[in-house]
C-alpha cells in the first residue's frame, strides 16, 4: 500500500475530495497545516513593522491506497488542485506496510 500525502491550497479541498470520490477513493484524513515554500516573500506590515508571512495556510490530505491506485490518486489530486499559481503544493508518495480497520480488524486492502 501507499500513503499519498498532498499539501494543497485550502480552498481546493472540496475539488480534490470530489475528484478522489470520482475515482472511487473512499477514505482520507485531512489536517490544517501551515506551509513554507517558494510562495514566500509576501511581506506584510503589522503595527508598522514589516515582516514576511512565511507560513501560509495549507491543507494536508493523507490517503492510503493500494499500490495499484497510487498513480491515479496522485493524478486526480494534481488535476484538481492545480491553479498554476505558485503555492499549489506537492504530492508525496511513500510505502505503507500494513493497515487495519479498527472496527472490523480487517487488514490490508480490505481495510482501506
Amino acid at each position, binding site marked *: 500500500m501507499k500513503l499519498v500525502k498532498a499539501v494543497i491550497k485550502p480552498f481546493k479541498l472540496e475539488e480534490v475530495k470530489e475528484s478522489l470520490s470520482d475515482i472511487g477513493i473512499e477514505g482520507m484524513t485531512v489536517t490544517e497545516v501551515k506551509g513554507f515554500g517558494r510562495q514566500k516573500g509576501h511581506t506584510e506590515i503589522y503595527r508598522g513593522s514589516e*515582516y514576511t508571512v512565511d507560513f501560509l*495556510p495549507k491543507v494536508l490530505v493523507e490517503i492510503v491506497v493500494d499500490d495499484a491506485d497510487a498513480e491515479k490518486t496522485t493524478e486526480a489530486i494534481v488535476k484538481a488542485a492545480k491553479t498554476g*499559481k505558485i503555492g499549489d503544493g506537492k504530492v508525496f508518495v511513500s510505502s505503507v506496510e500494513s493497515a487495519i480497520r479498527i472496527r472490523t480488524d480487517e487488514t490490508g486492502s480490505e481495510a482501506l
Partner: protein
Amino acid sequence: MKIKKYLLALLLSSSAFLMTGSLNADMVMSAEAAVASGDELAGDYLALLEAQGEYAYAFDFFTTSMLWTVIAAALVFLMHLGFATLEAGLTQSKNTVNILFKNVFIISIGILSYAVIGFNTHYPGDFNGWVAFGSFIGDLSGPGMDTFDYGGVGLAMTAYGDFIFQAMFAATAATIVSGAVAERVKLGSFMIFATILVAIGYPVVGSWHWGGGWLGTLEGGFYDFAGSSVVHAFGGFAALACVMLLGPRAGKYVDGKVKPILGHSMPLATIGVFLLFLGWFGFNGGSVLSANPAGVGLVFTTTALAACAGAVAAIATSWLFLKKPDLSMALNGILAGLVAITAGADSMGPLASIIVGIIGGVLVVFSIIFFDTIKIDDPVGAISVHGVVGIWGTLAVAFFGGGVFMTQLIGTLSVSAAAFIFSLIVFGILKVTIGVRVSAEEEAEGLDLSEHGQEAYPDFASS
C-alpha cells in the same frame, strides 16, 4: 386673581417658572437676594433653571429624558458590535479581519458623515418633502437647543442628544449591507458605497418619514415607530441590490444545488445576537424620544416579547421543517422578532407583539430558504431579517397598531424600492468603474490576506 395666576405659574412649574414678564423681575430679584444671602447650592441650581428660560418647569423631566436619549444612543452603538460579531461568526475565518475592519469603518464614517451632511439632510429645515441636502452640524448648543423647547415632550432632548442618537442609527443601514455582501466584496468599493449610503441615501429616504416629508401626507400618516421600514427594510433592500450586482460566493450554488458555506464561530454569532437584542432596547426604547414612563415600559415589553416569540417560532419552524433545532435559525428568529416589532412597538399590546414576533420568526426561516433557491447569496440572512421582515413589521401596524393598510404598504414599498434603486445605481456605477468584487483568487485565499495582509487568528503564522 393675581394669586391664582401665581399659583398657575407654580402649578405648571416642576421647578421654577417665570411666566409673565412682570413676575419675572420680582422673582429673579428675590432669588438673587436668596443666593446673595449665602445659599450657594441653591444659586447653582437656580442658574441651571434659568438657563432653561421659560421652560424651567420641565427641567427635571427634560433632564431624565435626555439622559435616556444618550443611554439609548450608547445601546444602539453597541448594536454595531453586535453586527460585527454576528457577521464575523456566520462567515469563514479567512474573511474575519475584513469583516471587523468594515464594521469599524462603517460606524466611524457613519457618525462622521452624519455630522457633516446626514443630520441636516435627515431633518431639513426648508423642505419640499423629498430631498433637501444639509450641511455640517456646527455648534448645536445654546438657547433653544439645550432646552425643553428644542422638541418639547415629543423630542425631549437637547440638539446634541438628538444628533448622537440619530447618528448611531444612521450607520445601521450600511452595516446591514455589510453582512449580505461579505466574503467577496472589494474593500475600497464597499467603503465608498457605505459612505454614500449613510451620508446621502439613508437620510434622504429617512426624511420622507422622520424629516416631515411626503410619507406623512398619506392617509392616516405612515406609521413606522423606530424604523422597521426606514432603517431595516431600507438596509435590507439596499443589500438585495448589492447582492444581485455582486453575485453569489464561489462554491455556494453548484450544479443547481445549494452548498452551505458554514460560519466559523457560533459563539461569536450568539454574542452578536444577544448584543443586538440588548441594543434594541435602546433602538426602540430610545425612539420614545422621552423618558415618558408609560411609553418606555410598553416598548421594552413589546420589544422583548416579540424577540422571544420570534426565537421560539424560528426554533419550532426549523425543527419541524428542517428536522433539527438550528441555532443559526434561532438567532435569526430573535432578530426577526425585533425587526418586526420595530414599527409598532409603542402601539400594540403584549399579545399582538407576540403574534407579530411569531410571524416574523416563521417568515424569516422561509425567506432565507427562498432567497437561496433563487441564488441570492446572503451569508448572514440580512435581506430576509431586515428586508422581508421589515416590510412585515410595517404592515403589522395596520393589523395590530391602528395604521392604515394602504398607507403602510405604500410607505414600506416606497422606502424599500428607493433603497433598492439607489443602491443599484451607486453600486452599479462602482461595478462598471472600479469593480465591486475581488478576484476569484483573492476570494479563495480569503480577504484577510488579500485585502489586509492580516490573519484573524494568526497565532503561529508569523515568522
